[in-house]
């Protein structure tokens, strides 16, 4: 692994920590990079009660069984990716979260047919929140993100501005009635996705900062 002091988040070169931001302006979209999160891909027999019980015992919460839902407890959240695939994420900004989650799950699920892969470094996470966050995403995303169709806690893999993304509606933004989405993209698309979102949000007024 790279020396810790050299490790950079996917959007570090944009110098987001060095921007003053202007939260006093009437910005209705807030963009932020979530650096150094844990993102572990878990594949396992989704229909096997023994496997589901073992996960629950290890994590303290049940794996989401229904399509497009998430569940969590403690420091991690499990996102449904497919009938036999989940993402276990920790977005608190702990650089060691990925390896720690992976090690914990590998030990706890050793008796089951699973694949646990730490892919934290392959992804970038952009948080987009604010009153016009939905409208901004909807410009490049075919999925219906209306509050009636896409509720807090829901997640979906879909397309945004021609790239593949995982969108998770985590809940309220700075103002509780405003939505906050976590958009996971592949690391090599991070800058493109960020610039696309910044451009799409410009008409609403946008602030950009490090999470």
């Amino acid at each position, binding site marked *: 692994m790279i020396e810790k002091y050299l490790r950079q988040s996917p959007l570090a070169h944009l110098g987001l920590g060095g921007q003053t931001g202007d939260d006093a302006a009437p910005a209705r979209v807030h963009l932020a990079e979530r650096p150094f999160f844990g993102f572990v891909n878990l594949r396992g027999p989704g229909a096997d009660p023994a496997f589901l019980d073992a996960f629950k015992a290890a994590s303290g919460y049940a794996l989401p069984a229904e*399509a*497009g839902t998430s569940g969590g407890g403690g420091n991690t959240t499990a996102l449904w*990716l*497919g*009938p036999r*695939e989940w993402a276990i994420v920790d977005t608190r900004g702990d650089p060691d979260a990925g390896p720690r989650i992976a090690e914990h799950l590998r030990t706890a699920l050793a008796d089951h047919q699973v694949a646990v892969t730490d892919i934290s470094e392959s992804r970038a996470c952009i948080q987009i929140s604010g009153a016009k966050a939905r409208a901004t995403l909807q410009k490049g995303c*075919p*999925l219906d993100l209306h509050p009636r169709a896409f509720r807090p806690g829901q997640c*979906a*893999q*879909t*397309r945004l501005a021609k790239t*593949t993304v995982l969108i998770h509606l985590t809940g309220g933004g700075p103002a509780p009635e405003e939505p906050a989405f976590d958009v996971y993209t592949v690391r090599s698309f991070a800058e493109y996705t960020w610039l696309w979102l910044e451009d799409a949000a410009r008409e609403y007024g946008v602030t950009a900062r490090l999470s």
Partner: protein
Amino acid sequence: MLVIPCPHCGPRCEIEFSYGGQAHITRPEDPAAIDDETWADYVFMRDNTKGVFLERWVHAHGCRQWFNVARHTVTYEILASYETGAKPPKLDFETQV
């Protein structure tokens, strides 16, 4: 654009999917025992149906699962979707054309 009902994720837009050609094509059990014509038929020959067609799709930008769809090739209406390995639902193929 088509709205394709993924058996796992529900209705999603066509750009999330990739096409996989005709469904329910079975690989010959013993390829060594058959003649070239039968093998070529298995590898290359596909139906060109005007009407209800059973075809494979993969939710490439979603849950990444393969599944089958019954689509009318004239009206583009999608009549059913079902998981790979399942039998196609009973459809009135004749009257749909």
